[in-house]
């Protein structure tokens, strides 16, 4: 693809297959309740976000979720299990909207694009998406390939795809 901007948009759309996957958006909700399974079902037990995205007293994420998946109980786990801050909500949003958020330091945890690339390629909680345990469908590809896609998107100018037209 000769046009760098078109290439950048195409790279983001490929990365968006991961960003919009249930293993990722379930913990990027726009409200106070995490989701689970493949159809954004409400989390059971009915836990809530809490002030620091780690749950509330007596019902913190780490009350149940360990730093790794549990085979016997099917409870998923990874280091520092928690919800993404609400300003980083992706659930129900389009790739164009998510792209704009990811580039906005006010909505990406104050990260530079280089830090975004590092986060996607190396963060262990992000990496859980490809190692979800039990019978959960993993995110497409691998964390390494996802990190490479995001890095290539940034190298080509971090262009965002056009917003989808209403039906």
């Amino acid at each position: 693809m000769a046009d760098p901007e078109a290439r950048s948009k195409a790279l983001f759309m490929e990365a968006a297959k991961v960003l919009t996957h249930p293993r990722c958006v379930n913990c990027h909700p726009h409200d106070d309740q995490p989701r689970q399974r493949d159809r954004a079902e409400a989390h059971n037990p009915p836990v809530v976000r809490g002030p620091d995205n780690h749950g509330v007293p007596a019902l913190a994420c780490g009350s149940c979720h360990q730093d790794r998946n549990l085979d016997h109980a099917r409870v998923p786990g990874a280091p520092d299990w928690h919800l993404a801050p609400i300003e980083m909500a992706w659930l129900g949003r389009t790739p164009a909207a998510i792209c704009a958020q990811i580039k906005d330091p006010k909505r990406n945890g104050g990260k530079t694009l280089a830090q975004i690339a590092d986060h996607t390629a190396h963060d262990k909680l992000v990496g859980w998406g490809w190692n979800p345990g039990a019978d959960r469908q993993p995110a497409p590809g691998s964390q390494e390939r996802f990190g490479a896609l995001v890095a290539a998107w940034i190298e080509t100018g971090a262009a965002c795809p056009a917003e989808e037209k209403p039906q």
Partner: protein
Amino acid sequence: MIALRVNGTEHTVDADPDMPLLWVVRDLIGLTGTKYGCGEALCGACVVHLDGEAVRACVTPISKAAGRSVTTIEGLSKDGNHPLQKAWVELGVPQCGYCQSGQIMSAAALLAKKPKPTNAEIDTSLAGNICRCGTYTRIRAAVRVAAGLPKEE
């Protein structure tokens, strides 16, 4: 061998590092107040405190408790005089009782951080503790009484 402190007493147990804390507490140490409900962290019957934080013992590998302090319902107070235990008796909270140690341990973890919780805070913190007898309204009232609040908001 894994060393941990349970209710102030040092224990060394011969257990697989992945053995759930629940079975260490119940079967190896003999403290049976902590109950097995679902084994999947869904019901709250097995809640204990690990260094003061509420955890579900059925999904907590004993390796995570190594060198740390565990409190079970038996260790919440020396003679049943924790404000929650007194309120539980005063209001006659339990029906069958099976879930109640988990309810009380979750409530204790809440009050440690929120000494005067609102109803909403009580509800969200105890949302993961299921009571099949449906004693929820008495549980909430007892938490409020233990916190020195009126029974109803």
